[in-house]
């Protein structure tokens, strides 16, 4: 009985020893982030100021003045890049329709018309523009809005959109 208890106590000591090492590892793991936090607090560079460092945020903030709250926009981007959700968040409650950058022109134009979207946003990427975006550049229904930032902005006149032969 006593032997069993001793054995259990050694087991507890082993777990506690491993845990103590693990706590030290946690300090090392969260160290850089804690350091960044301390620096930011010291500089007073917190809250919204952190977002201002992001070009995407500055672009979206500028877009807030261009796109009315009641309007809808189509956003061409790859979902996995994780930037689309940020733009949707910054521009909420504007209605957001995500399409792939590779979307064919017919479907892009159909979606813009069907969803009554008055803006088209294309986030810049390393890849060349897809067929839908290429067609938008050459269509009279799209008017480029000159807004510096990591993407292209077009005001759309859905009444001028025709589809069915762009592919």
């Amino acid at each position, binding site marked *: 009985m006593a032997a069993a208890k001793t054995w*259990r*106590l050694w*087991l*507890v000591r082993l*777990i506690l020893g*491993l*845990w103590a090492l*693990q*706590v030290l*590892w*946690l300090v090392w*793991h*969260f160290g850089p*982030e*804690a350091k960044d*936090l301390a620096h*930011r*607090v010291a500089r007073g560079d*917190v*809250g*919204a100021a*952190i*977002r201002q460092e992001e070009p995407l945020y500055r672009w979206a903030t500028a877009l807030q003045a261009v796109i009315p*709250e009641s309007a809808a926009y189509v956003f061409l981007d790859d979902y996995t890049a*994780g930037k689309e*959700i*940020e733009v*949707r*968040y910054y521009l*909420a*409650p*504007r*209605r*957001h329709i995500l399409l792939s950058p590779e979307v064919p022109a017919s479907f892009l134009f159909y979606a813009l018309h069907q969803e009554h979207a008055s803006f088209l946003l294309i986030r810049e990427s390393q890849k060349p523009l897809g067929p839908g975006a290429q067609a938008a550049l050459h269509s009279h229904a799209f008017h480029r809005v000159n807004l510096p930032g990591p993407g292209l902005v077009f005001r759309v006149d859905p009444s001028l959109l025709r589809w069915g032969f762009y592919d």
Partner: protein
Amino acid sequence: MIEAGVTWLRLLLGLGAIFFLGYAWLTLLVPRPRDFTCLERAAFSFGVGALVLTFWMLTLTWEGVTFSLKMILGPPLVLTAALLLTPRGRRAVREEIQTLPVRPRIALHGWDWLLLGLIGMVFLYALPRAGLYPLWAWDAVATWGCKAKIFYTTRGLDLTCIEAHNYYPNLIPLLLSYLYFALGQVNDSLAQVIFPLWGALLLGLLYSLAGRLGLSRRSCLGLTAFLALNGTVFIVHLYIAYADLPLAFFTLGGAGLLYLWLADAAPRGSLTLGACCLAGMAWCKYEGPPLAATLLLAAALTLAWLRPGRWVRRLVHLSVPLAGLVAGYLPWRLFTVQQKLEIGADHIQNFYPQQMVKAIYYLLAGLLSPYYFGFLWPALALALIVSGRRLWRSPMLFLALFVGGNLLAIILAYAVAPTAAAEFPAYVRATLDRLLLHLTPVAALLLALGLKDLEG
């Protein structure tokens, strides 16, 4: 400077209102709130307050009433005042006031200070990390935070602006939007402080429940620190604004109260309070209702296996937490039907045996990896081995069935997940830590029972 002070004051008042509402409901739900410890009262007041407030916001939407701070807080506060004026409410307040001047003497010694210091260190990092950085994590930006911002800006539960996951329950988005109303603006960094608060309440609840299991104060503190500082998942969830930490909180509350009830060690009203926890689970996350149902199933199986005195009658008593689950699930479900919201059918496509084999490997790796939960799960495995026959012959079986059953459920869920083979590892990586987080506080409670053996 004055503006910042006013903003913080508004935040504190907003949070205080949640505690106040919850406490008043506590006086209605349990015969004598003082039967619960101070930490338990604080934790359950916040949990119940958050439930009441967000369900009220859902009611306002149903009635077509636009959100405003006056409409969100006014009627519940009037009701709260009425509840506190009832004989039961008056007695509860009187008892609280009577015990205010009596300060319990807490004599902490070396190791206690160290353990408390370790827990304090976690919050010294997590609280400013939550409150000073803007919302940034994927689900927080894509779902919870985005909905909260839309609910605030459109002054209602407007789901036309967001297409993904509209059918998800809305406790967290509504609670965040309530805080925006309290702050008078969308301030997604300050509102995030509810997450470290929720984490602190969860740890307080664990500490208190461990004490009820018969552990010494030092062991309770050790167990709490062992959960808080084991792996990265718990700490990260203190500041990423995901719904998983609140779900883990409600799960711990529900499991803890049901365990005490099964062990005949529960304060009066525990079953009703447990029902509220199950309602919270259902209203918190999509995974909540099945998780809550497994709590009830584990409790029923434990009763049927152990067959304590009047066990059939006790089985019938489980209808109280079942009613809580239904009350937490039904309002939102009916709302989605009324609004014709498309319900996701993610996990009901097909059965993929090769995914199941991989899921077993990933699950074991997740449980054993120090990166996720440190040494908590291996310690639990050892504690269960050491427990021996007691596991089958005591209500400890309930917690073991719940945790073990849900680990199996995770494997099954991955086996039917409709993902491409190439995407499967990433899918598991993005979800497994969170699914385990829901269970880990309950696993810590089970570990407490193992520790009790050692102390004895």
